[in-house]
């Protein structure tokens, strides 16, 4: 479970201070799917990076499973990223010189898994996302949707507890978007993941259990317990309440 308390993030741009997050409070329960929407530049990606231990808040605390990430040293954060958190990026971020299986296997290097097992688990993960026939293809030989499937396989191959997706369908056409979001939904159900998705796309956000709106660094989100996956999609901003 994530518990964010009064999270503030300021950047300095030259002599000017920019407030990316202005006191965000948020609780994400285990196995919940939360979508965060908001205009570009209003702090969505910053919030996701702080939740993913890629960045530290200027103030406030970020707890994951009862551990305050903001108090940990970099080495401990690296371990948490290696074991507990999977990332999916808008631009896929695959390594262009490695084939699909090797890209996925990269996620199993930090946990010190043997090379042969890395390969077999990578192939399993790629098969699970429908890419059994594309194991040895380079990213440049794959479509956008296939590249995002590789990225999803890479995020999930280490069996993380959390999946953080930053605009996972932002670079895809509508048809591929629906395929990818359907895949994410299936994997979320199947693995019992805690999933946080940042998106511009209301139709993507609507598939989540709860939707938060982040504007000018402030998060508005319904505090109620999320619906179960079987209760259907969230209806959107009508059920939001400004928390801070």
């Amino acid at each position: 479970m994530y518990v964010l308390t009064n999270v503030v993030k300021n950047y300095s741009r030259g002599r000017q201070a920019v407030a990316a997050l202005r006191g965000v409070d948020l609780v994400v329960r285990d196995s919940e799917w939360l979508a965060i929407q908001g205009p570009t530049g209003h702090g969505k990606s910053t919030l996701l990076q702080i939740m993913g231990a890629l960045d530290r808040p200027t103030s406030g605390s970020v707890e994951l499973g009862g551990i305050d990430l903001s108090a940990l040293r970099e080495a401990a954060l690296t371990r948490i990223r290696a074991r507990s958190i999977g990332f999916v990026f808008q631009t896929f971020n695959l390594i262009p010189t490695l084939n699909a299986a090797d890209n996925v296997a990269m996620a199993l290097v930090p946990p010190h898994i043997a090379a042969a097992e890395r390969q077999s688990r990578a192939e399993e993960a790629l098969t699970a996302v429908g890419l059994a026939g594309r194991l040895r293809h380079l990213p440049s030989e794959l479509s956008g949707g296939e590249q995002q499937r590789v990225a999803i396989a890479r995020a999930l191959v280490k069996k993380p507890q959390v999946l953080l997706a930053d605009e996972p369908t932002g670079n895809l056409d509508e048809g591929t978007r629906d395929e990818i979001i359907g895949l994410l939904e299936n994997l979320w159900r199947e693995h019992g993941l805690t999933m946080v998705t940042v998106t511009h796309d209301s139709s993507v956000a609507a598939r989540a259990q709860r939707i938060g709106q982040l504007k000018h660094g402030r998060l508005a989100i319904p505090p109620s317990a999320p619906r179960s996956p079987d209760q259907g999609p969230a209806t959107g901003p009508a059920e939001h309440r400004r928390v801070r």
Partner: protein
Amino acid sequence: MNAVYVTAASAADIPAVQNEIAAALPGATITDQDDLAHEVTGSLTSTANLANDLGTWLSVVVLIAAFTVASLLTMAAVARRVREFGTLKALGWRSSRIVGQVMGESITIGIFGGAAGIGLGYAGAALIDHLAPKLSATIGPASAATAGGGALGGKASGGLKSLGNTPHTVSVSLTAPVTVSVILLAVGLAVAGGLVAGSFGGWRAARLRPAAALARVE
């Protein structure tokens, strides 16, 4: 008249003839075959030393330039791969592992570059041996000497001490010797170059904050 050539009946008479001339002409400069030989040998040695010194300093300058260019290229490559390293950090790769990756790649390139350099060096040395012009120094009673030094190393032969009164030609051949020590030095320097370049690149990669690296627009 400013020069008089004197021939002695035999080499053994030369010192006596010199003494007599000195006594008869106290202001004259007397030069014998040994002085001439010494003069020419000295010129050849100076030329060879100059060539060696120049070669050494040129090698040092080229080496520094090569290390600098390799380091800058590695750092440029790291800059181009910022998002890749940011992604690896997001996957949980430690900075030290990423540094090791960059250094490993750099050293591997250094080893391949060194191997290619040895091949090119052999080819260049063979070409020099094949194409280098034959240089010579001629020494005779008229002290007409033409001398040349090798830029890469020269060998002189001709027996200057036994010149006598007839003209003698000393041949100077340009060579580019390739020895085991030179090859080992070349490989060592190539690996060292890879290490230096990899250290700079790795240091830069390690300093990246994951969030900043991922936010970098390519």
